[in-house]
């Protein structure tokens, strides 16, 4: 059975790009959210296996959302997908429970490789 993915990013360009890549790789994209707050409500409603999470977003950023999601469900896999490639952000995400970190602009092979490891 294919794994269910929720995509969280304030950019429709990234949401649509990730959806196309994950569709082709056999994942089931069950929903998309535009910020951390929407991600929390959609996670509760859709119960995904994996969340692809941007970091810099309006209303609630990805690291805050990551901490909340992990507190609700420690088994949830979260992949941070962000342009912020500074090491302090990578470490902050890892400490908050992120399973992987992909830097934008990303390549399809890299995205698939990371998601298939989860």
């Amino acid at each position: 059975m294919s794994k269910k993915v929720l995509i969280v990013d304030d950019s429709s360009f990234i949401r649509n790009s990730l959806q196309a890549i994950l569709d082709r790789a056999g994942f089931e994209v069950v929903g998309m959210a535009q910020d951390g707050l929407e991600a929390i409500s959609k996670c509760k409603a859709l119960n995904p296996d994996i969340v692809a999470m941007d970091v810099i977003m309006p209303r609630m950023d990805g690291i805050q959302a990551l901490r909340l999601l992990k507190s609700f469900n420690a088994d949830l896999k979260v992949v941070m997908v962000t342009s912020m490639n500074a090491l302090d952000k990578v470490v902050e995400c890892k400490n908050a429970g992120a399973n992987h970190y992909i830097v934008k602009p990303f390549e399809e092979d890299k995205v698939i490789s990371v998601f298939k490891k989860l």
Partner: protein
Amino acid sequence: MRAEYINAFVDPAVIVIEKALKVDAIVGKITKGFSPSMEATYSVAIGVKGDLSGVVIVVFSNETARNVSNNMLNKSTHSLLSQEDKETLSELTNMIVGNAAGKLYELGLKESLTPPAVVAGTQSSFSTLDMSESIVVPINTKLGVIYINIFLKDKRSI
């Protein structure tokens, strides 16, 4: 601003543009001031807060904005920019500045970024900024020139 800080934007900008747009990107003459006055532009502003603070504004002429968006979305339209087009330009800017923040971190500078904001209009939209302290980096591509305007102050030197 120190040359190494400017280079922290230039090098990632070239890499991001070449990777995201799949075109050659050549850095033009870096000067003080703001990008040249154009009748109609789309500008994407990202706030920077940390050891360097201020704003980075990436400016596209209408034609360049359309070309860049068409390229990234793999389409060919000539209409006014849609919300999706604007979000695509925002994302390119986000990638340029986000990757630059990584370079700045390697130089010992910690930065936080705001979500991007798109402004349609002319540079008078930014008339409150002190342009005498800004640096403009033109990046030449076959899709048009992408101007990266850097308005950052080193808080540690104040």
